[in-house]
């Protein structure tokens, strides 16, 4: 049996709180820290916002390296429960304001998307498909 299949079967999948997500990737809250206790079940990683808009499930974590206003708008339209901006990208004041208005916690971290997604998958978040 391939090694990755062995590992995969040992993984348990759990909901994570927004605060646990932030800790898992050594992240920092840009906004929405008051929602640290909010639970997230799924995650989706993409820099392509059109892809994000095809995802059917709600309350997911959006992991992306795209840092602009449309990232926040796309998360709002997708009913995302949290946004994680990877690769140490700068977040503008306008992004922070829009995320706050939309009620979506916004977290940044320095890791790559691959590493962030890997850590969060290992910690229990589910893929959308």
């Amino acid at each position: 049996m391939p090694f990755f299949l062995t590992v995969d079967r040992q993984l348990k999948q759990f909901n994570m709180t927004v605060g646990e997500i932030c800790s898992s990737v050594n992240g920092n809250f840009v906004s929405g820290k008051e929602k640290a206790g909010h639970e997230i079940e799924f995650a989706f990683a993409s820099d392509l916002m059109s892809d994000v808009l095809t995802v059917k499930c709600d309350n997911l974590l959006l992991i992306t390296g795209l840092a602009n206003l449309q990232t926040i708008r796309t998360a709002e339209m997708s009913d995302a429960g949290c946004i994680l901006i990877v690769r140490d990208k700068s977040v503008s004041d306008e992004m922070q304001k829009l995320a706050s208005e939309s009620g979506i916690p916004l977290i940044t971290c320095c890791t790559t998307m691959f590493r962030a997604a890997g850590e969060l998958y290992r910690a229990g978040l589910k893929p959308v498909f």
Partner: protein
Amino acid sequence: MAMSFEYKVEGGDFTHAGYASSQVKKMLKQLGVDNNIIKRVVVCLYEAEVNIVAHAWRGVILINLDSEQINMKLTDEGPGIADISLAMQKGYSTASPQVREMGFGAGMGLPNISTNADRFDITSEKGVGTTLEIAILLTGKAV
């Protein structure tokens, strides 16, 4: 319950792209519309709104809402679409590098609208503009 709203959209203005979609989402939430239907509406509207910003010079969004359905008509002044059947294919796009940097322009927008809408019509005249008419039943029953 019958309501109408109009929003103006400026081509190239990515700062405000999505404003109309956000307003419509808030309104539908206030009206207590089912969350899954709201998501289908705003995904269609947002994709179409971003299309105006990405491809046209300017456009107008007309929203007509009653207790049965929401009708969204987006009319733009712009270069138009030369081949609509090609534009409806997943992966086909004429978007600029600037649009792609914003996370769009992968040729997913029109097919995604078609997937989520109960009724979707698109007409276009080259050099004049494009009109999208999108309808979604608020009861969740397909047209």
